């Protein structure tokens, strides 16, 4: 069995979830007015959590698809709610990404945040708790609680420490997500109610039981739709993406890093964890439409990225395109595609996290994010240019770095499902090279507009220190991706195998869609 006692001896998942919150509370109560102390506390707590997530991977049995490090305590018995935690390879990978990025944003915010610093660092820690909770929850009610817990600090991070239009951005972010959350809440209550074994039993929130439950096609249709929309807002899928550029442009660096690095992954994670296993019949109905929307996201997102003038907005819009590969890979419904999608999620977390860090560092020097005001910066800032080039190349899918593995596998998955769709998705890779290299050229190459930048310092050790781990992981995931693919392989195979019986007689749903549309 995979209880936490047998595997490691202490409730490691609970510790991972609540250590940051405990740290935040301690900071708020005992360290008011002592910035050095609480900043270091935040750094140490997130550092410990990162180490703990590595311990988790170390003790993780990656040969099985079973949930591991299980913790199960009844919480509200009459409502069938329990405190149930467990992780598989997908969760473990994303938890590691979360703890890493949560750690790195602490030094990145060290001097950047000028007001209400304590509240800021405490928010980051609460946020970390919520994110890890989502990835570890095995009870749908608990899942929802963590989901909401995670949104509130992010709302404040954007709304309090953001740029000039922060209120608009924060409200937009909140409304989009809230609309999604409400749909999800309704769906959660509905399926918990409908999954009762008999009419006198308590509702079923346990995700293991919900996976086993069988819902009527009609229920599946509506529940799938509600969950899917909630997750699609998070991904974000076209056309639900417009909160993203605003949120990113206004958010402080740390907010953008976490938002792009982890919060967007909640969408893909939710689809894998809930939509596919719970509603297999609905999946086959929706697949062709979702794939079409994913392809639109890839191309549309890339085209819009091409014409952005603000560096941060450019990175934000590029996320829309990259995340299209995630949803496309997931709904290709084969092992290669889904593994690719998860690799894209992981890699995008590393690379976009790094890119947002770099945008922040650049902004601290230049006080602008307008690409037109840059140019020739490789001269005064060679180290910055080298890092930016690296992350640009990784992000445009240069083989040997992390971006390639995920996108290529995702493409293979989509291509296996439908060749034409694979070909369309591949256009996104041409466009990615176009918008990234063009940006790089305008920012780093060509003439320098002002010699005064030679007086600004190049990256310091703190900045290099936050980027190097991300670069190292990007190389690792590109050169030896099996470390990560092994981790996510068994759970992905389980998801696909469980779905297989429902898809067998459906054939190529895209062709059916075409024929239903065109009558041929």
């Amino acid at each position, binding site marked *: 069995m995979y209880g936490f006692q047998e595997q490691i001896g202490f409730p490691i998942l609970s510790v991972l979830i609540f250590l940051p919150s405990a740290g935040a509370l301690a900071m708020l109560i005992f360290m008011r007015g002592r910035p050095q102390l609480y900043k270091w506390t935040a750094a140490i707590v997130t550092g410990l959590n990162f180490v703990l997530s590595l311990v988790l991977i170390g003790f993780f049995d990656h040969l099985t698809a079973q949930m591991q490090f299980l913790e199960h305590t009844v919480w509200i018995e009459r409502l069938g709610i329990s405190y149930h935690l467990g992780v598989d390879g997908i969760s473990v990978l994303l938890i590691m990404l979360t703890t890493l990025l949560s750690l790195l944003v602490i030094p990145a915010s060290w001097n950047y945040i000028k007001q209400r610093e304590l509240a800021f660092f405490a928010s980051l820690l609460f946020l970390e708790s919520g994110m890890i909770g989502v990835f570890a929850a095995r009870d749908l009610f608990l899942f929802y609680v963590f989901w909401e817990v995670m949104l509130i600090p992010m709302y404040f991070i954007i709304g309090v420490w953001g740029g000039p239009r922060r209120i608009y951005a924060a409200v937009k972010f909140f409304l*989009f997500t809230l609309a999604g959350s409400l749909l999800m809440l309704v769906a959660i209550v509905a399926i918990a109610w409908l999954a009762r074994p008999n009419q006198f039993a308590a509702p079923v929130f346990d995700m293991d039981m919900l996976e086993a439950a069988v819902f009527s096609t009609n229920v599946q249709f509506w529940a799938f739709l509600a969950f899917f929309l909630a997750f699609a807002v998070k991904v974000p899928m076209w*056309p639900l993406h417009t909160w993203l550029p605003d949120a990113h442009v206004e958010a402080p660096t740390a907010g953008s890093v976490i938002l792009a690095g982890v919060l967007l992954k909640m969408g893909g994670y939710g689809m894998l964890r809930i939509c596919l296993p719970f509603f297999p019949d609905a999946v086959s109905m929706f697949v062709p439409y979702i794939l079409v929307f994913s392809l639109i996201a890839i191309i549309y997102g890339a085209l819009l990225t091409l014409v952005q003038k603000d560096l941060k907005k450019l990175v934000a819009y590029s996320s829309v395109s990259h995340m299209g590969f995630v949803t496309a890979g997931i709904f290709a419904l084969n092992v290669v595609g889904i593994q*690719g999608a998860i690799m894209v999620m992981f890699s995008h977390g590393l690379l976009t996290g790094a890119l947002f860090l770099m945008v922040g560092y650049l902004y601290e020097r230049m006080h602008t994010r307008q690409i037109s005001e840059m140019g020739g910066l490789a001269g005064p800032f060679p180290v910055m240019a080298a890092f930016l080039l690296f992350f640009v190349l990784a992000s445009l899918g240069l*083989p040997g770095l992390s971006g390639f593995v995920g996108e290529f596998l995702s493409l*293979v998955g989509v291509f296996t499902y439908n060749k034409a769709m694979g070909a369309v998705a591949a256009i996104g890779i041409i466009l990615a090279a176009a918008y990234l290299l063009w940006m790089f050229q305008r920012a780093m190459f*060509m003439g320098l507009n002002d010699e005064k930048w030679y007086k600004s310092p190049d990256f310091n050790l703190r900045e290099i220190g936050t980027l190097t781990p991300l670069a190292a992981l990007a190389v690792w995931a590109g050169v030896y991706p*099996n470390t990560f693919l092994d981790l996510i392989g068994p759970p992905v195979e389980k998801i696909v195998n469980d779905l297989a019986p429902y898809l067998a007689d459906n054939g190529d749903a895209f062709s059916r869609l075409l024929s239903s549309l065109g009558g041929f």
Partner: protein
Amino acid sequence: MKAAAILIPLLPMTSFIITGLLGKRYFREKSHYLPVAAVAASWLLSMFVIVQVERGETLSWQIYSWIAAGNFNVDVGIQIDQLTAVMLLVVSTVGFMVHVYSIGYMKGDPGYYRFFAYLNLFMFSMYMLVLANNFLLLYVFWEAVGLCSYLLIAFWYPKVSAANAGTKAFLVNRVGDFGFGLGVILIFVTLGTLNYTAVFGHAGDIGTGTLTAITLLLFVGAVGKSAQFPLHVWLPDAMEGPTPVSSLIHAATMVNAGVYMVARSSPLFFESTTTMFIVALVGTFTAIFAASIALVQNDIKKVLAYSTVSQLGFMFAALGVGAWVAGLFHLVAHGFFKGLLFLASGSVIHALGGEQDMRNMGGLKNKIKITYWTFIIGALAIAGFPGLAGFFSKDAILEQVFLGGYWYFWIVAITTSFMTAFYMFRLIFMTFHGEPRDLKAFGHAHESPRVMWVPLVVLAVPSALIGLALGFPPGAGHIDSFLRPVFEEVLGAEHHFGLLEGGLMAFSALIGIVGILAAWRMYVIRPDLPVKTGARFQGAYRVLLNKYWIDEIYFALIINPVRALSRGLWRFVDINIIDGFVNGSALFFRGVGNLFRPAHSGKVQSYLFTMFLGLLVLLAAYWILTL
């Protein structure tokens, strides 16, 4: 052999990392020590490997499992056979010489360490490209060499034209890679493997339609990397890079990757007559198309660049008509003589302090003698002068095109041969003969330092002799027997060299000489003729000078429309429609909120009343539902 095989790429890789990280601060003007030593060692090891292959030894080695996801399994592995050996010969030799040459050419450049680091990264990638044992790994290093090309084209990045050229090269290649990548995926989806041996073993099992699709997609990649029409546009611009880069990457090695890939995939291409014809067609057309542009260019490197495009076209023409060995033979010969020509042109540019316009040259032949004579050898080689490298390799192509029944391609190719001889010697005469046209530059002109001219002399040797060494007697030379095992299944029977072949050979030699003489007449005897001719055929002249306006067409038909579309989508769809809807609904809810604002008056009695009403409604609903 294993140790040698792995060290060949790893030495430059190690040197790249060390030089890249420490060069700026510690090595500075000594940055070339390690890189040059690394490529020298790789060269020695390559020679060792070639000798082993010559003795009949080959290698197939899975190093580790790279990507394993579901049924998708790809290894990192190395394969060495005769084809790899031939590529190693060119890559290691020209690579080594270019490194040595760069010590002199790049001396004093602020990015000295960076230059050698990039060159080493390129050597690593190029070695791995030819050593890879499967299609995905080939794709990986295909893109990696493209990256190095990008970095080196944009090496002088403050220059706008250099930055533009770098980006353009990467993007145009990405278009090709889009096809290549889809081809690789299609192979995997069809056969479930990407390993060369396994794929070629099952080539016969693939349906004709799929096979044609696969090979055409792969060929799109080759068209991009080897700068064939219509994706040739990046190569002339790539001349913005330092000249050693043009020599190594954009003439002798990387641009050959497309030819190599098609040759490597010969079992697939061979099965599809449609693809083969398209390969031959694109190759032949590109050959004459690029040669015609080269006739009127005034930038010394641009002439050589279009010449490269044209010669690569010859190679594809050869592959397309099934003259596999001839195509590769020309690749080798061209690698040496075009590498030489670029280095020699660099020596001219160096002598004139950066001047590239041939209209400002002239009369240099006595000033820079070594450069002049090595240039002559390279030019005679490419013009197909009897006895030199290009004579044997190009003639082998022409002959097989003709004998294969493609007489229409032969006519185009022989015309191209004439143009080749003409534009090469136009270049020679404008640069080295006649009166100096820029006296100031001429006065300062000086021969390059020894570290630069020695590589010229070294490369002149194979440019002169490799044809005789490998290609004599025609059709039954050493290279034919050496490469035969690779192309065993796709090669017809050996044929005899008879009267017809002799006649063809003599004719093409004659055409080359006529081309040289024509250039002599126009640029030495009657220097007024070019202007007159240009004026007389003004329309044609402008078309050629403007390179058929291909770049402008791309801007008008693709780049500008895409930008306009993107801006439109952003402004209209994102901001107006979607956000309009979002903000509109926010306004709507605010309005609705205002509507109900009186309800939240804070008066307890009104709340109580509302609750009572609500209760009534619920009870009524319950009563109706349970009825």
